[in-house]
């Protein structure tokens, strides 16, 4: 297998955008090709398009050729859309990586997009609620907020986690997103703001939840030996782990211990030949405040049940044990499903390049992970990224 690197990243501004699905793709595509030397869209031989629900959000299907057309790519090797709900973007990176690693492709684009603000919000919620098994869980209105609400309730019940501890995650991530110009939300919040925000599904309030967001982001992957042609500051993909257990609520491994995350992390450390202690930056899936707390635990940054204490002690801040979501995370940057993982991969690339605000710069970072989860947290994916080749 050939070693593979990301040589460029391009993003549309995330947010509630006065722009269509295809406008977003064009913005990201332009930014992507402007971020790389000696490479034009016509040089790309393969493209993967991460799009979770274009059928619902944009009433479009068969979107990979549409995106290729709009960003000027005419793939001669491999083209496909990837769908894995909130992990659709990382799925695109994984397929592109595989194609370049095996030699099926030499230059591949992974680009994600989602347009999540249609005119009717109840229709958008219907779209979200068919991610969980629609006939057995969605029908009971288990969409994202309720499933993470009951997860939080059980975590509080079993481990004594508090709403104040959960609020601290929101405070940290809004702080970092306030320093990130592409982020959806750029305003700081306090613990009181979080606790006093409107209740969505108790114990979760509005600022415990990530926003719905329009966005698009893309990366270019090439084989490591070709990197120097395109950039002086690449990011190498050195390991990965992915695991899914069960789907309907009854068949989850556990509500309060994310076993698939634990297994994906073990596999990621093994394939990258690192330990959790080598991780300098963790861009993790903070779709809800409870998610990030359970990710500290599942990734092994702290003991099971001690995720609340971990943030209380300031450990996931820059300068703590590990910098968790210095981008501002999903909570601050927003969650355009198909593009989310790609935004966060680009964040690690920017950190390696030192191309971020000093207030959220993780100096000297060598290893970053990009973690995404989907559904009822029954599926977890981790990419391990390195500044240096391995």
């Amino acid at each position, binding site marked *: 297998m050939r070693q593979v690197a990301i040589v460029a990243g391009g993003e549309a501004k995330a947010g509630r955008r006065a722009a269509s699905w295809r406008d977003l793709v064009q913005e990201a595509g332009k930014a992507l090709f402007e971020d790389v030397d000696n490479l034009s869209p016509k040089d790309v031989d393969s493209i993967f398009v991460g799009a979770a629900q274009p059928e619902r959000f944009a009433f479009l299907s068969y979107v990979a050729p549409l995106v290729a057309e709009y960003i000027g790519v005419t793939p001669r090797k491999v083209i496909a859309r990837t769908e894995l709900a909130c992990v659709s973007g990382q799925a695109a990176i994984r397929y592109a990586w595989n194609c370049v690693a095996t030699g099926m492709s030499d230059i591949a684009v992974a680009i994600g997009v989602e347009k999540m603000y249609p005119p*009717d*919000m*109840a*229709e958008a*919620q*219907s779209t*979200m*609620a*068919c991610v969980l*098994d*629609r*006939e*057995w*869980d*969605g*029908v*009971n*209105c*288990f*969409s994202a*907020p*309720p499933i993470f*609400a*009951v*997860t939080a*309730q*059980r975590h509080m*019940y079993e481990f004594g986690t508090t709403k104040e501890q959960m609020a601290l995650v929101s405070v940290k991530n809004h702080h970092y997103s306030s320093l990130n110009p592409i982020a959806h939300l750029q305003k700081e919040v306090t613990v009181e703001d979080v606790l006093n925000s*409107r*209740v*969505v*599904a*108790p*114990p*979760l309030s*509005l600022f415990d939840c990530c926003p719905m967001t329009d966005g698009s982001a893309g990366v270019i992957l090439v084989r490591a030996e070709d990197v120097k042609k395109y950039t002086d500051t690449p990011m190498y993909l050195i390991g990965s782990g992915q695991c899914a257990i069960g789907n*309907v*609520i*009854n*068949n*989850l491994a556990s*509500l309060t211990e994310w076993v698939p995350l634990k297994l994906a992390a073990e596999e990621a450390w093994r394939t990258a030949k690192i330990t959790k202690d080598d991780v300098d930056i963790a861009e993790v899936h903070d779709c809800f405040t409870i998610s990030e707390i359970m990710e500290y635990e599942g990734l092994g940054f702290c003991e099971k049940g001690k995720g609340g204490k971990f943030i209380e002690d300031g450990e996931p801040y820059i300068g703590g044990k590990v910098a968790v979501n210095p981008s501002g995370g999903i909570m601050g940057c927003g969650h355009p499903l198909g593009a989310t993982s790609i935004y966060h991969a680009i964040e690690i690339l920017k950190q390696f390049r030192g191309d971020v605000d000093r207030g959220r710069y993780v100096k000297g970072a060598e290893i970053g992970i990009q973690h995404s989860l989907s559904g009822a947290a029954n599926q977890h994916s981790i990419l391990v990224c390195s500044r240096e080749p391995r």
Partner: protein
Amino acid sequence: MSKVKFEKIKRPEKIGLPFMLDFYPLQDEKNTRISQFFKNLKQGHLTTTKCKKCRKLLWPPRIVCPECLSENLEWVDLGVEGELYAFTEIRLGAPLGFVEDVPFCVGIVKIGSLLISTRIDDAKYEELKIGDKVRLKVVELPDRRVFYRFYKTKEQ
């Protein structure tokens, strides 16, 4: 004024909830091979399939056992009582067809070894706690399809 011709065209002003946005499954034998589940529910019985070969109790009901691939499954009655394992209340962000019900409680009910998601009727969030005893109820849609829900019993 432009010389281009302008014309107003007609579209239906209002479209009812289309089938593909209806959360409730189709239930008759023309549309599903687990129609027995809904026939049983109409009689007041919450049932599921159990594999006769490997004895695995399956939720939701299946036509093939994912553990041993046997098609030799039997219907078993899950009874009418369960224990509240976790719950919340939908206050914002309900999907189409449920907006009118807000606020309402949903939860996960423990019945033996199963954890079944469901609406929790006739209770406010503040009136519920983990471990509460809940009881089966069957709701009927205007088109006579049925579904299960649970409610908190007076005797705890």
